[in-house]
Every structure is written in structure tokens, then in C-alpha cells.
């Protein structure tokens, strides 16, 4: 495979396209509403209405507007795309008939809706456009060019420099500078190095990585290959949770196709660079998203974290230097290599560069996936793109960062969304889950929900996380049952501090955050539930 061959594949594929393309979202969300039947019926209708010379029905990944799904987009009829929303399999005939100018009563979306208009797409640029199961579709939009450029025109150190220049920070949540991480792994001595892509997305209400993997698997593979070249690795592992079967099957197809074309494997683009990717499937533990636990799991051991240092960059998978990045981090790489680190650094704020994908869920009108430039005010996301709370209710709070994050009250909606600003409010950027709550939500219940989640997902290795989350959940239950006193609340706060500061890994260290942030902004909701202190010390005597 050389660049001429790649271009030939692209040209041939573009030439084979028909005039009108009917795109059917076949991501997990729309699939659950029978998108497969919709696509089959659309194909049938095209043949029945004798339009098969001009019309092709294409399977595509997530279009983003999940709340309006199943979605069908049509290109090549009007200047802008036509977007059909809430489509049922029986609507297929009418959709195809509309191509011939027939009127329909079907719900047609507005492509200029702020939900779409305010987005800046880098990671999700191909989402909902290309067929995730056809490598030719990816190549036709310029896929694997960045890998070619990196391998033939850049030294590994230049690739690291470009990523450093871009200012990209880890999209898994903590926001560690990606270029710095790559540089450290590149400089770590070792004959064998590994690349790991963390696709163990597990925060409640988060589905960003799922959509990227389901919609554009080659983008992630290409990012991993570029990373491998930059740090001197020849083996990658894609760790995906078993709950994402569609993502896994599309990745398997993608790896097979890339290998068949020589874009993965030995001597890629006729250079001495070799790179193979294997999939490892998580077995359902949230903690395996923590990097050291994830590596244990890849090694075939019980997925429990270990203390850091040593960091994976120095001693990771099988004791070798390991570069571990999140799906979205890898998905940003091809754009950075193609358009340059300076271009990427031009998007976003001073310290948070580029775009971020958010999964907008909860009590909000427009549920779905959005990709926005860093620094966009939270209000624009929630009120304009998301349309605010449904049923005439008020937005009370926005939860970011999942069980490690916090609840941001509505009065801070004008905060720009970047790593530092969210941290200042006691929440975190996290991986991109954004759960909106309306004024009917009880914040103590929310804190309890997340605490229960952390308790269930604690691996059990360290005592503060294992036994501390249990006691914190008990205290929250006691408060909710109106059986707690001021002393119990003090105990809860003391435990929050202790678990945060003494737990082994990020899960325990951040588990108190939902309690701490709701206590910070909604303390009155806790206090309203407290009972007066009873006589006596209220302590249990030890044996």
C-alpha cells in the first residue's frame, strides 16, 4: 500500500456513489428503535419505486440528535441535508416517495437548529456521514492520510511535538497534557512498548466513546497507529467494555479491513513501521477504566488498581512503558497531524484546547451528542443547544464528570466549560457525561445515587473506598429517611474528607465529590431532612 493506492481507492469509491444518499443512523440508540428494519425497508422501497440507479441507502454511525431518533438524513436533493426524525420502519416508503417530490407528514428536523449550528466537529466529523463498516468510506474522506504523512514525512519526535503544540489534554477526564504523556513514553527506555486505548466508558449517562467507536472506528485505529509510531510501539490494545457489542463488532471489522489493506500489520505504507491492534473486552467492572486496573485486566488478572508511581509511561502493561489514552484523545490525533498543532490550539481557551464531545442527557429537551469548542458557556449547551428542561420546568443543576464529578447549580450556568473552570466549581470535565436536572430533583437523592454507584463499583482492594463508601451510603440513606441528626451530617463530611485523601485510586479519591458538591450548593436540602440531636453521645461502644 502506497499513497497512490490509497488515493485510487478513494477515487474509485467516490465515483461509484449515487446521486442521492439516504443515510440511516445505525448506532446503538437508533438500533434499539429498529433502525435495521428501517434500513431494510428503505432499500426495498428504493427498488420498488425504481430509484436504484440514483439512490443509495447507507448505514451510518451516530448523527448526534439521539432524542429525535431514529434519524434518516438525505443528501443530494436539496442544498442542505433533509433530516427525518422519529422514523418508524413503516415510514420508509413515504421517505423514498418524497424523493420524487411527494408530500409527507413525517417529522422533518431543522439542520440549522442550535443543536447542530453551535457544534464544531473534529472527533465526530464523520459521525453520521460515513459507513463505519466500510473502510473505503473512511478513506474517501481522507482517512489514513495522516498516518501516511506521519510515517513518511515526520520523525517520531516531530509527531510528539505536534501533539504537544496542539495543547490536547486527556479526554478521559483528568486532563493530563497528551503531548507530555507521549513524550514521556517515547523517552522511556525499553525495547517493547504498548499503546492502550481506554474504551471502558462507564459513567452513568455517558455515551461519547461508544458513539465514536460505533460511528468511526478507523479514526481511533489511525490515531493509535500514529501514537505507536511516535512513541516506538508495535502493539496496541483496544479495551472496550462488553456492554458495547456493536462497537466491538465494528472495531473487529475495521481491524480486519485495515489489515487486509496493509494499513495495520507489518511494513505499513512500505516503511519499517509495524503495528497490530488487538481488542480486549472488559467484563463489567467500572474500576477497569482506571488505567492501572485496566492494565491488570488486559494482563488477564483481577482488575484492581495499584499505587502510582510507577506511572504506566515508565512501567505499565507487562512492566513495559505504556501509553494509555482515552478513545476521544486518540480520535483527535488525525486532525492534529493533518491540520497542525497550531490550528488545533486555535480552538478553545488558553489552557483547554480543541473541542469536547458531551453526552447531553437527563431532564433536557434535546438529548444527544454534541461536540463543542472548549470554553463555550454551559448555558449555551444546556439552554440553547439542549433547549432547557422539558414540561416548562426550570433547570436546577448540571452534573458533569459522572460519579467523580459534581453538580453545578443553575446560577453558575455562565461558567465556560473548560478543565479549570469546572474544577473551581467543585466538579470536573470528566469524560463528557452531562446530566441535566430540573427543579423536581432532590439533590440528596442524587448524591445517594452516585454513592451507591461507587459502593457497588469499588473493587474492594483499599479500605477507605470499600468500607467508606458503604458507610457514606448508609449515612445518606439515614438522612433521606429523616433519621439523621447534625452529628450524622458531620460524620458524613468527615468521611468524605478521609475517603478522598486516603483511597488508592481515582474511584475512591473522587467518590465523595457528588456529596461534597451538593453539600456546597444545596446544603439546605440536607439540613431540611435532619432531626434534632438526641440526648446522649449517639455513639456505639466498642467491645
Amino acid at each position: 500500500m502506497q499513497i497512490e493506492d490509497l488515493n485510487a481507492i478513494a477515487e474509485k469509491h467516490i465515483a461509484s456513489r449515487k446521486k442521492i444518499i439516504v443515510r440511516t443512523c445505525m448506532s446503538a440508540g437508533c438500533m434499539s428503535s429498529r433502525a435495521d428494519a428501517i434500513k431494510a425497508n428503505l432499500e426495498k422501497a428504493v427498488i420498488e419505486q425504481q430509484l436504484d440507479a440514483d439512490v443509495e441507502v447507507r448505514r451510518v454511525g451516530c448523527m448526534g440528535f439521539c432524542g429525535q431518533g431514529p434519524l434518516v438524513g438525505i443528501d443530494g436533493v436539496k442544498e442542505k441535508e433533509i433530516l427525518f426524525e422519529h422514523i418508524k420502519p413503516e415510514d420508509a416508503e413515504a421517505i423514498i416517495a418524497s424523493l420524487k417530490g411527494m408530500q409527507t407528514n413525517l417529522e422533518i428536523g431543522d439542520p440549522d437548529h442550535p443543536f447542530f449550528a453551535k457544534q464544531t466537529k473534529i472527533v465526530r466529523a464523520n459521525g453520521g456521514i460515513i459507513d463505519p463498516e466500510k473502510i473505503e468510506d473512511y478513506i474517501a474522506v481522507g482517512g489514513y492520510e495522516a498516518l501516511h504523512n506521519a510515517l513518511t514525512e515526520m520523525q517520531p519526535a516531530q509527531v510528539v511535538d505536534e501533539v504537544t503544540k496542539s495543547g490536547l489534554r486527556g479526554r478521559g477526564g483528568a486532563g493530563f497534557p497528551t503531548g507530555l504523556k507521549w513524550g514521556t513514553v517515547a523517552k522511556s527506555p525499553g525495547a517493547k512498548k504498548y499503546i492502550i486505548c481506554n474504551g471502558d466508558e462507564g459513567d452513568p449517562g455517558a455515551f461519547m466513546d461508544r458513539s465514536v467507536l460505533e460511528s468511526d472506528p478507523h479514526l481511533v485505529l489511525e490515531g493509535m497507529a500514529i501514537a505507536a509510531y511516535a512513541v516506538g510501539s508495535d502493539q496496541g490494545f483496544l479495551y472496550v467494555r462488553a456492554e458495547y457489542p456493536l462497537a466491538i463488532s465494528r472495531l473487529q471489522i475495521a481491524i480486519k479491513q485495515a489489515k487486509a489493506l496493509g494499513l495495520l500489520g507489518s511494513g505499513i505504507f512500505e516503511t519499517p513501521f509495524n503495528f497490530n491492534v488487538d481488542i480486549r473486552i472488559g467484563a463489567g467492572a467500572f474500576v477497569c477504566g482506571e488505567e492501572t486496573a485496566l492494565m491488570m485486566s488486559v494482563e488477564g488478572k483481577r482488575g484492581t488498581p495499584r499505587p502510582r508511581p510507577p506511572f504506566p509511561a515508565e512501567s505499565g502493561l507487562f512492566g513495559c512503558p505504556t501509553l494509555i489514552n482515552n478513545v476521544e484523545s486518540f480520535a483527535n490525533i488525525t486532525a492534529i497531524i493533518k491540520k497542525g498543532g497550531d490550528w488545533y490550539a486555535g480552538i478553545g481557551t488558553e489552557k483547554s484546547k480543541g473541542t469536547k464531545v458531551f453526552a447531553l442527557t437527563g431532564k433536557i429537551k434535546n438529548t444527544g451528542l454534541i461536540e463543542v469548542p472548549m470554553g463555550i458557556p454551559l448555558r449555551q449547551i444546556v439552554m440553547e443547544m439542549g433547549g432547557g428542561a422539558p414540561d416548562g420546568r426550570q433547570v436546577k443543576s448540571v452534573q458533569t464528570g459522572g460519579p467523580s464529578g459534581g453538580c453545578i447549580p443553575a446560577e453558575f450556568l455562565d461558567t465556560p466549560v473548560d478543565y479549570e473552570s469546572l474544577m473551581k466549581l467543585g466538579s470536573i470535565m470528566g469524560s463528557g457525561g452531562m446530566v441535566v436536572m430540573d427543579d423536581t430533583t432532590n439533590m440528596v437523592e442524587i448524591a445517594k445515587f452516585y454513592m451507591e454507584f461507587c459502593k457497588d463499583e469499588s473493587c474492594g482492594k483499599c479500605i477507605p473506598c470499600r468500607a467508606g463508601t458503604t458507610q457514606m451510603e448508609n449515612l445518606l440513606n439515614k438522612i433521606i429517611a429523616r433519621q439523621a441528626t447534625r452529628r450524622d451530617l458531620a460524620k458524613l463530611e468527615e468521611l468524605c474528607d478521609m475517603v478522598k485523601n486516603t483511597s488508592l485510586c481515582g474511584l475512591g479519591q473522587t467518590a465523595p465529590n457528588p456529596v461534597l458538591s451538593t453539600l456546597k450548593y444545596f446544603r439546605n436540602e440536607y439540613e431540611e431532612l435532619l432531626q434534632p440531636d438526641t440526648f446522649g453521645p449517639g455513639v456505639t461502644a466498642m467491645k
Partner: protein
Amino acid sequence: MSARTLTVDGKQISAEKGASVLQAATEAGIKIPTLCHLEGVYDVGACRLCLVEVKGVNKLLPACTTRVAEGMEVSTNSERLNKYRRMTLELLFAERNHVCAVCVANGHCELQTLAYSLGMDHVRYDYIFPKWDVDNTHRLFGMDHNRCILCTRCVRSCWHIEGAGTKNVAGRGTKSKIITDLNQPWGDSESCTECGKCVMSCPTGALFKKGSAVGESVRDRDKLEFIVNAREKKQWNA
């Protein structure tokens, strides 16, 4: 072998390169509380009792897995650390059924000793009182999950000293459990070599040699009557 100089609780000490802070402190006569640490097996940093403050590091670090560094300033005994340690012990006592009075390890239990030495004289959290079973199927040993603190010292000594790999951990969170082979009764284990290293490792009364439990120390009072009858009535049938 190069040495590193560091300060622990204001005392200048030297340690071998690659030594843990715990080793360095112990050599210098400074005692740091530990529970999951066991000489002879590798450390996992799980119990969080040996957490120390290191100047310039904003997180607390486990002394057992942190390597010494030149010029490191370590504090092992602050009020904050001891408060966290007492809370850790309280959480452990509340988590399962640690009833010292009827425990095989009473008087030589590391958990009990730590509670005394750190001044944990009461538990402020609600006792969970979980129902855990006792595995008495093994010929020589028993395992009382009610006393287990999940330090995994038994698992590590079984894998890394004996090399049998009989013990392991199943489940997660507070439902984690030390298991034998594929979660079988210990007595049915084919990999167990009956070496007893797990029992030697256990800091509490979770693992014990049979015959040492309080319930097993029954008085044989019938024997007295038998002797009297034999002596006085010349009756030899029991």
C-alpha cells in the same frame, strides 16, 4: 549499592536505593502502622494505614510502596494521619463481625493491637453485621469470613511463597471474599498443599488452625465421672 539520605519525622536517615519508605523508617527505628504489609511478600498498598506525608507531594503516599528519594522529607505521625488511621480501623471494625471476646486471635490480633495503639476506643459508624459463613471443610484449617479484612496477605503468600495459587479474591467492593480454588469448599481443594502459610499470614482470626477456636475448647466433664466410677465402683463402661 548507592544510598539515599532522607528525613523521616525530623530525623535524618539513610537507606539503600530502591528501599521503600517503610523499610527505611523501620531500619531507623521509626514505627509506621501497617496491616496489609507482610515481610516476605510483595506490597500492594491496600490498607492505607501506612500513608505518610511527603513534602512537596499533595497526595498522601503509602510508605510500603513508595521508594526513598534523595532529600525526601517524610512525616509519619501527624494528627491528621492518625485521625485517618483511626477512621480506617473504625471502618474495618464496622464492616464485618470483629468480636474480640470470642475470637481465636484475641490477644494476638494485629487489628486489635492497632486499635489499642492508635487509640481507637469506639466505633462511631453503624455496624453492618453481615452474615458471612465459616469454611470448616479443611482437615487442618478453617476460614471465618466474618473476621476477614481482605488484606490479601494469605493470597500473596499462597501464590508467591508457596506457589500453590489456592487462595484468591472473588467479588468486588464490600462483597469481596477470599476464595479457595474456583470458589470451592477448602476441603475440596486440589491445589492446597496444606502448608499453612495462609494461616501464618493472617493478621486477624479469619484463618486459623483447627482446635484453636473458642467453641472448640469444650471441657470433658464426663471424664471425671468415669474416673470416679472406675475408682469407687470398679465400673469401666463409659
